[in-house]
């Protein structure tokens, strides 16, 4: 599988892609730090239904709280990115071309997904570091003390935030890949994924709040945020694993058994 991962890195680690990633990570960090810090109030509720207050920002995990909070909103972006990337692998015939070099289908598919996730993990790490640095500036402007951020507990929270973001991103990646494999057409898979994870889940959850605890997209959103008022981190992790397990099993079964005709 390492061969496939290395091949994906050849494809993705290009100057243009890296410049775009750097711009995206910087824009994310600026947006996350400014939005989270400027919207935080004393004891009030913050973004995504999670308590992001000036007091929580002053805690040991405050330095990366903006990263985790804002990252919960990029899951959907990761989802559609994976749909587009993986569906075009099937419709464009590049998956077929890779199978002619290595016919072990599951290895090729998993290697492709892992390769993209490695790049995303790198971009996320840069985004977290940038958000952390910008949070210092924002903290000063809002009078938030930052001494706890640099403690060992702060480092632990930063790692935990990074891990939950990656776990959620991985979940979105698997769900996106599943839709891509099922439909093998980027427009169709994107349309269905967009409608489901966009308006459908959110509209239904607005009318039926229990949906926040059950819909896969909202579960992963809660996971990336490190847990929400509606869904605790532990339960989000377990449910996310169940959804990802089912989706991954269906995807691998389809890829293993279906003819490659495109």
């Amino acid at each position, binding site marked *: 599988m390492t*061969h*496939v991962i*290395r*091949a994906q890195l*050849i*494809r993705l680690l*290009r100057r*243009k892609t890296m410049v775009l990633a750097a711009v995206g990570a910087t824009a994310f960090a600026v947006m996350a730090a400014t939005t989270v810090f400027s919207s935080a109030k004393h004891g009030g509720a913050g973004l995504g239904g999670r308590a992001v207050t000036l007091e929580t920002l002053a805690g040991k995990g405050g330095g990366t709280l903006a990263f985790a909070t804002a990252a919960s909103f990029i899951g959907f972006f990761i989802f559609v990115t994976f749909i587009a990337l993986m569906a075009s692998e099937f419709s*464009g*015939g*590049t998956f*077929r*071309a*890779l*199978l*002619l*070099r*290595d*016919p*072990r289908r599951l290895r*090729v598919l998993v290697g492709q997904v892992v390769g993209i996730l490695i790049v995303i993990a790198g971009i996320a790490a840069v985004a977290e570091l940038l958000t952390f640095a910008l949070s210092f500036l924002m903290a000063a402007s809002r009078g938030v003390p930052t001494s706890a951020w640099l403690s060992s507990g702060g480092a632990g929270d930063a790692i935990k935030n990074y891990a939950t973001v990656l776990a959620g991103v991985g979940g979105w990646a698997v769900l996106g890949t599943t839709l891509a494999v099922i439909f093998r057409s980027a427009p169709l898979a994107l349309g269905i994924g967009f409608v489901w994870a966009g308006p459908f889940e959110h509209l239904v959850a607005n009318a039926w709040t229990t949906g926040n605890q059950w819909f896969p997209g909202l579960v992963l959103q809660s996971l990336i945020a490190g847990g929400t008022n509606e869904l605790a981190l532990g339960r989000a992790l377990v449910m996310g694993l169940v959804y990802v397990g089912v989706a991954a099993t269906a995807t691998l079964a389809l890829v293993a058994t279906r*003819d*490659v*005709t*495109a």
Partner: protein
Amino acid sequence: MVAMTTTALSVRGLTKRYGSRVVVDHLTLEVPAGVVAGFVGPNGAGKTTTMAMLLGLVRPTSGAGTVLGHPLDHPARFLPDVGALIESPAFYPALSGIKNLRMLATVGDHDVDRIPALLELVGLADRGNDPFRSYSLGMKQRLGIAAALLGDPRLLILDEPSNGLDPQGMREMRELIAKVAADGRTVLVSSHVLSELEQVCDWLIMIDSGAVLFAGAVADFAADSDAALTIATTRPADLPKLRQVFADAGHLVELGDDRLVARMHPGDLDAVAADLNRAAFDAGIVLTELSPKHTTLQDRYLSLVDGSTR
């Protein structure tokens, strides 16, 4: 392990059904090692599906076979020795030709140092750093062949590599196929136009509606072809009389509107022409035309296809 065999490809009863539609119908054929085999059939004849089954992309409904001595259902055993271009060349549009080849070489664990020589071979040495999306169709096909050659394969499977190319591009593709076959590798190349392939192939497999019409050496196919003589006189009214004269001389000819047509084995052409000319002269009829016409392989192929669809 490399299996040494004198048969590069062998399939027996290979069948592919999609629902009630039979795409490949009990296909049985062999391709000897070291030949350039033309795989010819009309569009929709089942060529691409057959090739996809040979490459492990499509699972046969029934039937079995071997590729380079390994069972068809274990593509991991033979694909390292097989290069293929199937359907259209599939590459990442934003990547350069070189980076696309590097990607594929990495996946297949092939030597990336071969890439410059392969680009040179296919005539893309000066365009290797350009993005794939900027390539013409002919260049894309040639990059596809370079990709197929990455692992220095013993067997090359090319699916309609000339499709969509202009006459110049087709000629270049034929030259390229001849060049890559010169190393002694087996090449299976498909087309729906026999004339595209007859100059480079020494083995032919013709299929239609998923079934084999002919499989064998080109020489055998050509030997089965016939030739014809077209005969005209100064007075078309003499044609029935002339036809009888030829019949008396032991030659059956067909009467057309203003011509007679005599069919024969190509090897008998000169002798029959002399015989007919002499018979006409003896009967006092002056011939204005006695012209030979060889049936081309394409004519014979088309007549086979027509026969199979009747």
